[in-house]
């Protein structure tokens, strides 16, 4: 049985379609109910919906053989998994944003509010800037407005939320998209199935780009 962890939400639904096209369909997943686990015993496949940020945990610990996770999560938590394919969907960027009239306070550490402490730490280390991290779990955009931080490091998709809060992107740290990941041990023992999926997804991406 191949276990696949999908991120709950729109991205997960898009990703499932790719698996379906690869020949790993599981019709029950489209039923409108609150179930989280779906099986197609004929094909030897089991899907489950998990919180997007948890996909890499399920895969790293072998509860899922493969899964789809955002590059932001992979950079932040650095799970010990194979990153097999950039699926080129769920595209956005990790960026530094601040108030439009922001001036860099060179005489003290920069206060950075973020959910992604490791990404922020690594970025500012690479440019040699001393920072204080303020770890927040949501509504990051209000931190600079209320004076809690100088800037934020967060995911920016369209930039609308930033604009509406009078903030702007100052620097792009890294582009983000969804990635197909695999548990390292599962890849050794379920190679054929995983490579079949991988190959089909590569083909689908080529088709899309044509």
């Amino acid at each position, binding site marked *: 049985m191949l276990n696949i962890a999908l991120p709950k939400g729109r991205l997960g639904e898009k990703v499932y379609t790719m698996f379906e096209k690869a020949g790993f369909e599981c019709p029950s997943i489209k039923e409108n109910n609150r179930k989280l686990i779906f099986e197609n015993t004929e094909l030897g496949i089991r899907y489950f919906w998990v919180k997007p940020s948890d996909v890499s945990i399920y895969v790293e*610990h*072998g509860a899922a053989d493969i899964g789809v996770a955002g590059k932001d999560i992979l950079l932040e938590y650095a799970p010990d*998994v*194979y990153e097999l394919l950039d699926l080129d969907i769920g595209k956005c960027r990790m960026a530094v944003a601040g108030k439009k009239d922001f001036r860099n306070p060179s005489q003290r550490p920069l206060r950075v509010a973020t959910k992604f402490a490791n990404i922020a730490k690594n970025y500012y280390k690479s440019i040699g800037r001393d920072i204080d991290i303020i770890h927040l779990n949501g509504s990051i955009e209000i931190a600079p407005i209320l004076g809690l931080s100088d800037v934020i490091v967060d995911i920016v998709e369209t930039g609308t939320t930033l604009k509406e809060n009078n903030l702007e992107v100052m620097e792009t740290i890294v582009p983000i998209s969804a990635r197909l990941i695999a548990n*390292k*041990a599962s890849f*050794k*023992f379920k190679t054929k199935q995983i490579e079949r999926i991988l190959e089909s997804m590569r083909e689908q991406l080529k088709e899309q780009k044509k």
Partner: protein
Amino acid sequence: MNFGDAVFENEEKAIFNLRKLYTEYGFSKYKMSKFEEYDFYVRNKDFLVSDNIITFTDSDGKLMALKPDVTMSIIKSSKDIKGFVQKVYYNENVYRTSGDTGQVKEIMQVGLECIGDIDDYSIAEVVLLAAKSLECIDKDYVLDISHMGIIAESLAQSGLSDAGRNEVMNAFGEKNVHAIVDVCQKEGIKEEKTALLCELSRLSGVPSQVIPKLKELSVSDGFSAAVSQLEDVSEMLKTNGCEGCTRIDFSVANNMKYYSGVAFKGFINGIPGGVLSGGQYDKLMKKLDRSAGAIGFAVYLDMLHWIEKASSDFDVDVLLIYDQGAEVLEVGNAVKELSRNGKSVMVQREIPKKLRYRQLIKLEKGKVNILENNA
């Protein structure tokens, strides 16, 4: 005394089998202290699996460390003698902090080290013992083998910057072909050089299929010499019936600061991570001012709890309950009699909840009465 298989946990069984295997190949047991001076590790921190070393101050005011690694201690005590290879195995606890939670963990490791004037035979023997170690634990295993020389030569010819090479090394470990392409594009690397790196990252298969492809890909004498060494190792594995479970796979990309030649990692079906890791670490030897070469590996026994032991339907063969008035000797004799055929006997005054027993026996007025038979 004969012990049935059921008596041993997976870890205990593995320790006995591995000790037997290593002794058969002339390795001798190495015992060491639980502590080392902190300073000894701090200069080569990158070699250690975990960054955080657990330290304490001893009565002389010296900063000591609970041993996070065995290899470095063994190197310290070995001697460089021309033509001689020191072959030792160990069964030790190491102390590390878990990356996710920061919790302190005591991990039991079994492993071996081959230090000294090592040659192609010593290398092939150690890789063979790695494969046989996995086989001892479970027949359904995979040993991934790569060669740092091949990766180093391919990176050298690519023209990537040091930062770029580090990124590509990480990408090798993740089988992340798209990251290799990104890094090479960013640094303006020619397409054919990028293609070689991508091809190496994708390669994975039994040695007889992969080695001919590697010969075609060779870009330098160093590359070809490394392929020839992999070929020797593969022949050794094939002769000993292990080829089917080995793969040449360059996702085993150890730290180039310490490792130089063959590197390998072992997996067992049902365990979510690697259970064995090793390689040739001549560069670490040099850093520790040693002229000899070295190769070794460790088996992480703490991972074996993932393999479910064939679970019995019963917790105990016989549950013996007795009246309050029963004599101690009466109960003792009944246990002696019932356990004579190797049966397990649990004595209780009352039947414990959730206990699964094959037979329920009650000792009443010096006589044993069978109340229940479940098998």
